[in-house]
């Protein structure tokens, strides 16, 4: 079954929560002077955009006096930094300290929503890589946009590729509920070529006429191809595609699944695309 990519657009649930976090709380009369001073310093730092200093000051306030509003504001700070697990712990702290807070049910719902949040994955390159900008990103063989890109994939393992005019990089990643992650996909060397056979399944064979290897970019002459796999272990069905003329890169995505009944490898979910790589 094809894995689905639930949302290809950046406007995710995570983004909305980040844009409208719950309002910040203020220190109460219960704060001793020193703890209040640190709390106020944290608020000033937040307003000035110094998140590291805000974190340090909220923690210093908490060490001086463990107060619910400090835990709450820390949770808010974590949420804005998309550190979901830390935000959940901080909001749970808030509920433990202020166990009769009027907004308890609201915070409980926020925690529950954070725990159920669909996976959010950002895919991009590496600052150290030498490849050009405007890379194409494909997930499970489907073009999802130009790098960097945000997606909300289904839970599970996914295959990702990053293609520029002269480079090709691929890997896989796990998407988990409640997680926000960044997948860095890039190479340090160029890898040109007009053909990519993409698959989450490693395959390498020579069918007597042409050599094939998955997840590698190389050149094949323009024309039609039909391969039944290696002579010693023929596929159940043929892999068929046409190599497009330049400047297109022919991208063929396929799954290679063992059919124990027929005692052969079945070629499934084939998708052939002619990709033109450049600025959007």
């Amino acid at each position, binding site marked *: 079954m094809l894995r689905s990519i639930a949302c290809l657009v950046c406007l995710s649930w995570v983004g909305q929560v*980040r844009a409208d976090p719950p309002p910040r709380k*203020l*220190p109460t*009369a219960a704060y001793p*002077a020193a703890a*209040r001073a640190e709390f*106020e310093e944290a*608020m*000033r730092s*937040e307003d*000035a*955009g*110094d*998140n*590291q200093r*805000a*974190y340090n000051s909220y923690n210093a306030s908490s060490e001086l006096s463990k107060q619910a509003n400090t835990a709450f504001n820390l949770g808010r*700070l*974590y949420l*804005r*930094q*998309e*550190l979901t697990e*830390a935000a959940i712990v901080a909001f749970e702290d808030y509920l433990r300290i202020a166990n009769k807070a009027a907004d308890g049910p609201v915070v409980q719902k926020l925690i529950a929503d954070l725990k159920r949040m669909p996976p959010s994955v*950002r895919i*991009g*390159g*590496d*600052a150290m890589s*030498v490849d*050009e*900008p*405007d890379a194409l990103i494909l997930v499970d063989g489907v073009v999802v946009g*130009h*790098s*960097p890109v*945000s997606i909300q994939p289904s839970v599970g393992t996914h295959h990702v590729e990053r293609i520029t005019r002269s480079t090709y990089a691929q890997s896989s990643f796990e998407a988990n509920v409640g997680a*926000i*992650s*960044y997948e*860095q996909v890039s190479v340090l060397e160029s890898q040109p070529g007009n053909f990519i056979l993409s698959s989450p399944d490693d395959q390498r064979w020579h069918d007597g006429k042409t050599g094939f290897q998955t997840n590698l970019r190389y050149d094949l002459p323009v024309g039609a191809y039909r391969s039944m796999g290696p002579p010693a272990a023929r596929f159940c069905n043929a892999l068929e595609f046409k190599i497009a003329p330049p400047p297109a890169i022919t991208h063929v995505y396929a799954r290679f699944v063992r059919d124990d009944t027929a005692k052969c490898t079945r070629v499934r979910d084939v998708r052939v695309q002619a990709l033109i790589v450049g*600025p959007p």
Partner: protein
Amino acid sequence: MKVGRTALAGLVLAWAAPVGADGRKAAPDKFEKAAAAAFAQAISADDRGDREAAYRFYETAYQLVPAPETAFNMGELDERSGNVGRAIENYTRYLALAPKGADRKDVEARLARLRTGSVAVDVFTMSPTVDLADAYVLVDGAVVLRPGAVRRTDPTTARRSWDLPMTRGTHTVDILTPLTAAHGTAEVTEGTRPTMQFTAPARVDGAAFVSIGADGLDLRWKNQAVSAGRFAAPPGKHRLKVDDATFECAPHTLEVRSDGSVTYLFVTTTEGTRYSGGPKRCRNLVFREQRLVFKP
């Protein structure tokens, strides 16, 4: 001053004292009594013009009993004394202690006024070769001085300078002339007259200038770092690779003209600094591009 001063000393006592079973308030505890006394002494010191002593007494009163009125009076005294940073702290404290005060809007307006008030930064150079007569000066990507702007020149030291108004905080300052360019940061803090010295070689070529206003951002053109200064890109459109820490950002297209102007690009973020590696992505970036024209 917030309300009638002598009345306030009584208020501090009354506010904190609970009503007993017999309907009378209990005697104020020792902290409240001491705070009220210190508050009254602060008022007296202020009345006779001794602001330093007044502030010390207010501080004592606040440490004993952190009353919002005390915080407000400290802020107001600071504001009158020109102590901007501390005034901001104390007014912020007041709002935190009295979030539903009737004068909240007035205090917020005071804070806004204090925060945007600017300080004159002495921006100077001792380099005799820098052609400042035709300089553009930009602060945080905005032109603050155009070619022909008057500058001070010290005839004995050859020190040439401008006074540039800047708010408290860290600012990026860029200077661009027909022949050269300079880039630096100015730290504006409370209490001292800020200065910023810049130097520049006699000649720096290029029809493009990139300036960064946030930590962690890196811009590259053809694998050459172009994050802080002028560089020679030929006329046309150029894709700049942009990274924020280790995270890739969408590239930016810079257009360089062939008319002798310089394309100036300032890049900053709306999200402040990172904490603990978060968020795990490129921050929201703002690109401000403008053409700076020099008369032949």
